[in-house]
Every structure is written in C-alpha cells, then in structure tokens.
C-alpha cells in the first residue's frame, strides 16, 4: 500500500496556520530540558533520597522556570501591545554597508531578566543587535513602505521564548552598493565621440574611419600597420553610416544575484560614463529613461520588480529605433536572460557585462569538514559564466566579466584564469 506521501502537505498547512499560536508556547527545547532536570532533581534526588544540595538546586531551577514562564508570557503580552505596531520612520540605506540605528524596540528597565531580539521578515536584512542599537546590513536594494519584524521575547536564561510579528510603516529606500565605475574602455567602443580621421587620409575624413581600440573590439579590426608606425592601437570601423547615430542602450537584467550588476550600473550612470546619448532600461520598468536621476531610481525600484531575468529586454530594445549598441548589466549567473540576449544578437552589437564577486576558494577537505558558508547571492559561478560566454560568443556577443573590485576580464582571459575543471 503506497504511503500517503502528500500527508506532509496537510501537516505543513496545519503547522503554517497554527504557527502564530505555537509561537506563544513559552518553553524552548533547552528550557523544557532544564525544567525536567530540575523536577527530577527535586523529586528523585531531593524527596526520595533526601539530597539537600540537589533539592535546593532543583527547587531554584523550578522557580526559575516558573518565573521565566510567567515573566515571558506577562511581559511578552505587554511588549506585544507596545510593539506590534511601531512608530513610522524614514530610512535610507545602502546594500553592503552597515548602518547603526537607534533600535525601535527596547526592554524597559522594569522588566527584569527579560531580553528581546528580532529579525526582519521583509525586506531581507541582516540584523544585529547591540544594546539599544540595531545594526542593519541590507542585502537587497529596493523601496518598501513598511518593515515587518519578527520579535522574540524571552528570559535571560533561555528557558522561555515567545515570538510575535511587528509592523512599522516606514519609507525605506535601499540603494545599491557602491563600487568603482569600471568599463571605461569598453564603453569607449560603444559610445560616440571616439572617431578620428585616418592618418593616411584627408584631414576632413575619409571613407575608412578608425578609432582607438577598446576592450571587446574584434582583434581582426586592429590596424597593425598603424600600430607599427605610431604605437597606437586603433581599429577600423566596419562601415561608416551616412548619419552616424551613436545612441547607447543600457539595460539591467533583474535577478536575485544582480546586486553587483545594479551597483555597477549605478556607479556608471552616476559618473555619466555612458556618454551623451543613451537610454536606460531595466526589467520591470516600462519604457526607457534618459535622465540620470530617473535611471538611478529605476535601478533602486527594480529590486522589488517581479519581472526578472531579462523578460523586459526585447520590449525595451524594440522601443529604441536609433540604437547603435546595447550594453547589458547582467548577473554572473546563467538564466533565461541569455536566450533573450541571443535573440537580439543579430539586431545590434551587444556588450554583456556579467558582474559578480569572485568565487570563494575552498578545498575539497574544507568542503567535507565544514558546513557550507553563507555565501553572497551575487558571487560568480564559474561554470555558469563559462556556459554563458560560450552561448553568447557563438552569436558574436561580446562578454566581459566584471568584478566589484574593478577588475575586468574579457571572455578569453576569463577562460584562461578560470579553466574548466572537467577538462582538466
């Protein structure tokens, strides 16, 4: 007879519904153990064996358990009444930075042996408590209108604990983290303003135009003769448009691992590195923007976007009639965005910047011995990046791998520095 495997779903559903009530059950597992041990000490050693020491210890233990339970439940109710709804506030934070703020929840001095702790349910936030201060380290950019905390009220012994939800109306804006604006040379190849007359040609210009080499340019376009004479690396522009429109499109792929990509986009926009003529878009944002302030706002709000993984890319490009090239800020992980990019590869030159933190180095022995570390979501997955590089390279899409430290690797260099483990 097959086991009713789906029963766990019902159990899970019941547990989920019961959870708010279960959270008010006071004893922790350690506390229950403590209480039982104290009872054993009193009854078995104290009463039955007349052990004067253990009966006192056991009785103190039982008293502590009782006091803990009464205090936790009593003061827990008072704290719940006080903190289930917290005064509104306005917060401006930045991903990756530590913010030390006055804690909105404190234990009054007249609640002895009580302690309170909490974590943020929404938005996602690393929280540490230091006395009366709340140390916040945001992990995701975005804009929120309230903060929901889960408050844990317990006694100082760890015997009893209850939990309750707390809501704070709050204008909370979390900016992307701050990293240096890298990619200048790549951008030089994408944006206008770099064209110059051929050294052999007329001063007013010639049929063959050249410009300075930029990272990501095909090697075959390099004019080696010019390099030999002048020592300057220049490339031939494939063809000269009658009306040279140099509008650069920039797009942010929204992804759970896009923290570094958003940070790079922010810093490039903030430093006006996209040139004079650009349009910016991101998943979840209908249309495009050409103002820096708007673009920065789009990046921040994209943190809350439900449209992700390049779903808005094609629509964004379709709206831009005069685009010359497309710069994509992408996470350092694969996803459906890769297919979206592939479909656009034939329409305009695309430069993809996969941005992510360097992968953690861990030996096999470390992997066996230690628990997996809490790793950043935007950490580079080398296999995934290799796969993306191969998929996009086959379509002529240029891929650069950018690290928040400022290091930029083109696809060839990446393959060299991060060889395929399987091939070895």
């Amino acid at each position, binding site marked *: 007879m097959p086991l009713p495997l789906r029963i766990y779903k019902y159990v899970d559903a019941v547990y989920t519904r019961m959870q708010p009530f279960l959270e008010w059950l006071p004893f*922790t*597992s*350690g*506390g229950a*153990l*403590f209480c039982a*041990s104290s009872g054993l*000490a009193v009854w078995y*050693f*104290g*009463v*039955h*064996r*007349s*052990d*004067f*020491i*253990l*009966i*006192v*210890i056991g*009785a*103190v*233990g039982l*008293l*502590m358990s009782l*006091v803990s339970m009464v205090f936790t439940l009593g003061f827990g109710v008072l704290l719940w009444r006080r903190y289930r709804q917290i005064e509104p506030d306005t917060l401006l934070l930045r991903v990756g930075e530590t913010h030390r703020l*006055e804690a909105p929840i404190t*234990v009054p001095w007249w609640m*002895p*042996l009580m*302690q309170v*702790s909490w974590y943020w349910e929404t938005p996602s936030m690393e929280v540490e*408590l230091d*006395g009366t201060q709340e140390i916040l380290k945001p992990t995701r950019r975005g804009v929120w209108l309230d903060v929901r905390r889960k408050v844990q009220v317990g006694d*100082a*012994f*760890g015997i009893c604990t209850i939990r309750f939800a707390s809501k704070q109306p709050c204008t909370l804006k979390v900016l992307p983290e701050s990293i240096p604006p890298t990619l200048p040379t790549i951008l030089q190849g994408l944006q206008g303003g770099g064209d110059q007359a051929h050294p052999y040609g007329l001063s007013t210009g010639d049929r063959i135009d050249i410009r300075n080499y930029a990272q990501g340019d095909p090697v075959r376009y390099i004019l080696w003769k010019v390099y030999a004479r002048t020592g300057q690396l220049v490339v031939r522009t494939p063809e000269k448009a009658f009306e040279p429109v140099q509008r650069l499109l920039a797009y942010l792929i929204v992804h759970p691992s896009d923290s570094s990509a958003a940070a790079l986009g922010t810093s490039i926009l903030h430093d006006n590195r996209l040139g004079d003529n650009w349009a910016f878009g991101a998943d979840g944002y209908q249309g495009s923007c050409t103002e820096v302030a708007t673009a920065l706002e789009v990046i921040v709000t994209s943190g809350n976007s439900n449209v992700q993984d390049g779903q808005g890319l094609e629509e964004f490009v379709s709206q831009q009639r005069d685009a010359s090239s497309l710069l994509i800020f992408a996470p350092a992980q694969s996803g459906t965005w890769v297919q979206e990019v592939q479909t656009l590869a034939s329409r305009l030159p695309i430069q993809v910047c996969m941005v992510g933190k360097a992968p953690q180095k861990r030996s096999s022995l470390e992997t*066996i*011995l*230690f*628990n997996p*570390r809490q790793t950043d979501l935007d950490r580079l997955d080398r296999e995934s990046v290799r796969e993306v590089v191969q998929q996009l390279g086959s379509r002529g899409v240029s891929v650069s791998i950018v690290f928040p430290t400022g290091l930029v690797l083109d696809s060839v260099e990446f393959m060299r520095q991060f060889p395929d483990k399987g091939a070895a």
Partner: protein
Amino acid sequence: MVPVVLSVFWTVFNQTGLFVAVVSSWLAIIAAEWKVWIDLRFRILGAMAVLLTMVLFTLEYLLIEWSIVPSVFGAVGALWLDTVLWSGIGFGGFVLLLRVLAKRQAAWFFIELALIALGTAVVFFPHQYKIIMRPLWLSDLAWSIGLEPSMALGIIGASLATLLSVLTVFEQSNRRHASVVVFPILALLTLIFVDPLEMETPPPPQQLEDILNGGQQDGEQSSGSGGSGQPDENEQTVNSGQEEKQSGSQGQPQPVAVVLLGDDYTPANETFYFRQEIQSQYNGLRLVAPTDPEIPYNAPRGFPESEITFMPPPSRDAYRKTVLADVALLTQHTSPFILETGVYYTPTVNPRPGRFNRTYRSKSSALNIGYEQFLDMHIGNPEWSNEYWAHLTGRPKDRRYLELAESIVVKLPEEYRDNLVAQAFAIKLYLDEQTKYTMSERHEKASDPTGEFLFGPHAQLTGYCVHTSHAAVFLWRALGIPARVGVGYATPAEQQKGSAILVLANDAHSWPELYVEELGWVILDIAPQTVLDEMGDGPDMEILDALEELARAEPDSQFRRAINWRALWNQYRGVLLNGFTFMLMSIVLWLAVHKVRRRLTYLRQSTPYWVYVSALDALSEQGWTRRKGESPEQFAARIHTECPSFTLIVWAQVGHVFGQEQTDGSELLQYRNRLASEIVENTTGWRWIGWLNPFSPWASK
C-alpha cells in the same frame, strides 16, 4: 566543568591525573572559543568523538598490554601515562565536545549545567537519606562554626544554584542584567521554603517489618531474605540491594530512633529490649498479637494521641527500676516501642518534625536483677483464668515439641527437674548451643515453620530470631510454662553513649518471654552460639551526638530549627528600620548638598561651565530635561521659545569648550538671572516641589 573534574574524578584519578584533568579542561574551554568548531559539520564532530575514543582505548591497550612500554617506562610509568592519557586527552576531549555542542545549540548548555550540578553534588552525596553527618569533613566544619550540617548543605546548594543561574545568564543572555542580584535571593527563599529537614521520613525498616510478620511475607517481598531453599543469585542481589538501602549509602546500619533515658539504667544482660508488639496468640502457624479483646494486651496499639497507662508488673519496686525514656523515631513505625516493661506512654511535641517522624515519652519498669535469682521464683499466675492460661500455652499439636522438651529437661539435675524456671533455662541453653543463626533461612514454605526449624528435615536448627523465639516459646508451652514472643529492638549497650541510645534497623529482634509470678514477664532471649551470617559494620556513633541534641531540642542547642525569620525580624526590626532610614536620609542629604553645590557654584566661580550646569539643573528640576542623544544646542533650540536665555548660556559654554575667548562673567550672570525669570514665568507656583527633588541634577545630564 572544573567542579565536575574535581568531584567525579576525585576517586578515579590520582593527584597527577586530577591536576592534568583540571588543566586539560581549562585548555578545552579556551579551545572551544575557536570559531572553527562552529563551522564544523555535526557528523564530523561525532566522528571525531568516536575516533578519539577508539584512539584512547587503543593507546591504553598498547600502554598496558604492550610489553615494550612498561619495559621502557616501568610499570608505574606506564600506568602514569595511562592516567595522563585519560585525564588529559580523554577528559579534555569530553569537555571540549560538551562546550562546542553548547555553543552550537543552547539546549546542550543545560546538559552541561546538569552535569556541573550533579558533579558537585557527588562530593556531598554521602549525606543522602538524611545521614547528615556525612561527609564528616563538612559536618565537622559546619559544627565548628555553629551551623547545622543540613543547613550547611542547603547553603552549598543555594550557592551552587546561584552560581549556575548567573552562568546561565552570562551564557544565554544578549545583554547585561543587573537583575542577576535576584538569584541569591531566590536561592535563599528556596532554602527557607524548601527546608531540607522537612522532607519525607523514610519508610519503616525492612528488618522490623519482616520480624513482625514472622518472615511469612509473600514470595515477592520476602525474596530478599531467601525462601525455603538456598536463595539463588538474583535473590541475593536483591537482598543486598535492600540491605544496602537500609544501611545507608556508606554501608552503615540505618538509625531508626534515638532513645534518651531519663534515669540511670544498665540492663543486667547488657541489652536494651524495646518491645513494640506482643505475640501470644497461636494462630495455627505462628504466634501473633492477640485478636481477642478479652485477652490483656499490655502495649500500645498504633500511636495513641493521649497518654496511656499499662498494667504494672508485680513487685515492681523490689526487682525492677522505673526508667523514663524519650524516644524520637527517625523512620515510620506502626506503633511505639517501649523499654521493657512499659507502664506509661504519652506523645510529646516533636522538636524537629522534619528530622523525626514522631516523638513520645515512656515509662518502664525495667528488670534489674540477674537470671540466677529467678530460680527460686514461680512460673505463671494462679489468678489467671483458665482461658488465659490456655491462651498463653497454646502450641502446635505436634507431639515432638513435648518429646524434645522432655528430653532436654530430663538432663537437668534431679533437684531442678521439677523447677519450671530451671526447665525454661535448660531449653534456652539447648537452643543457644544447638541452633545456628542465619537470616537466609526462613522456613516460610513449611506448614509449621517452627517445627521444620526444630525437627527438620530441611535446615534443622538453622534460622533466625523468629524461629528461635518461637521454638523456645513452643517448647516452654509444651511443658506448661506460659510464654509469649516479644518483637521490637534489642539494642546492645555499646550503642549507648551517656544517656542516649542509638537504635538501628539491624537491632530489630524477636525474643521469647515467660511469666514469672514475682517479676511479671521476663525476657529469656536465645543467643545462638553459631552465627552463619557475616556481621555488618558497627554503627556510626558520631551521629548519635547530633541526633541526641536534636531530640533534646534544648534552647542552647547548636542544632537549631530552621531560621525563624519572623522572630529575627521582630528582634532586629528596630535596628534595620532605623539603619535604613538613617541611610536613606544620609543619601538624600548628600544629594541635596550636591544639588545646592551645583546650583550655586556659579556665583563664586562665574565660568561658562558652572553657569551652564546651574542653568541645566534649574531647568531639569522643572521638567525640562535633555533627551537621550540630544545635543545641548538641540536642547536649547527646543526650549528656545520658553527660555531664550538658555541658548545664550549654551553658546557661551560651547564656545568655551572650543577655545573661544571666555564670555564676561557678569554677562553670564545676567543670562543666568534672566533664565531664572523665564523659568518663573513659564512655571506655576508648584515649582518648589522641583527644588525639593534631590534627584533632579541626575536628570539633567
């Protein structure tokens, strides 16, 4: 952890081992702080523990069994290495594992706590079952400082509980708690409310119950002392366990009562007989307490709530001595026992209800002559009714009793052959010589246990007091001598110290008695010359001193009752309240002086600082205080509408702090006076309440 080392391994390790264990546990505690233990996978931790255990056992095997090690280091060296191995690596590893687990999950910390508590309690465990004299080093120390050992033990428990509570807070809490001061109070409260001396009294001693029932308990209960056959190994184990419990944790016999004699008395045969029950009615199997209300029963049944007088023995003044005795029972009993022959009983106020189960006073008319003087006396009482004679001579119908009795009597010299007293002695001496004493032979499955004891075939003349006493009584009765069995305690005179007698569970006994017309009931106990059982340890007579003082409950006794807090309060209330009031007033006075000094120093020393301090205090006593985290400038801006002069004072102070040229003193005084006016304008006439508040400067910080 260190107490655990010291207590649990006190007897296991030698001095070196103990030292190594302490050092290794400290090192383990330090090593547990290493962050790597937190990151380690749980299964790896478990594997490491198993591996370490295996390595330890392997190394131990090599050290002890491998000849090369003893040959290099010597046998003593090899054993030393083994000790160091277990105490160092073994114990250190255990402590490390426990610490790491506690750091990883809070629940393990409570296991750690329990181990510490148990480990410490092990040092003092000999005091269990109310043997408060143990451990002796503690009781000696306690008495030397005028403290009762049980109270000393309670204080140790309270201190340990406090220590563990504080440890718990430091380990589990994420903030400092000034309220940890509550723990000593909690522990002391526990000590008051859970008075260790008020705990349950132990059950009655098994030996006495056994004898009262004549060894005829049901199979399960009596298995402890064997059955008709040789007890098997399991039965012996059970028995030894029971006896161990009865004897206390140290193998010492369990004390059951303290008897304080009010008169000088030493029994002629060096044994105090405390009679609890009289068994004179033959029920077809054995003698039991008379069930017929017509039959006189000269002993209390149960514990009467009021005094009772019993029929005195004849010629009490000539051959007997009146002995007053106060008895304090340490264990439960079904009825009181009284020194033979009891004439009076009254319950008394129990001086230590927790320590003693019950106390009572008895008066006895104790026999004060030697056996040799009995010969000229007469057996029985001619005034008795025929029914009573029949009651006191009832016996099994087996003719062998009479035949055996006659065969014994016939050996008497001619002149004593018809003397019933001599006949009784002859039978006693016969049983003394012929019987073999052992607790392991009960004859309980025989239809006539006494018959089997006397005539066999199984274990002939082998048994214990129940059998010898019944044998003597039945043989006497066969010769027409009225006799009965007395049950209670037979305590040797060695257990007397001064006027106090320590009665032990092992003293439980059953003895034959016969009636002598001139004396009344006389105990003629059987003393088998062959004893098959090993004799146990002697009693711990030191405990008698403590129990005696407790039982006497003298006002100047060092063994006081639990602290009477109400009496203490009444005694010291005046001192405490006056002292407290004096302290409170001193503090208030000091605060007031401090406040005035802060307020008026600016008149003498017109610096921006003192003007600022004075202004701040003046504001705070009227309720304008700086909020937490608020700078002086922000505070000044907040109250600028009401007190604009304060802003000028703050600027002067801030400027002074940042090195500006000092503002003219007179100008500052002007600001300060204007501020005073502004305060008056913005407050009501009740402002004087603020002046009286001695704490206001504390709010202005």
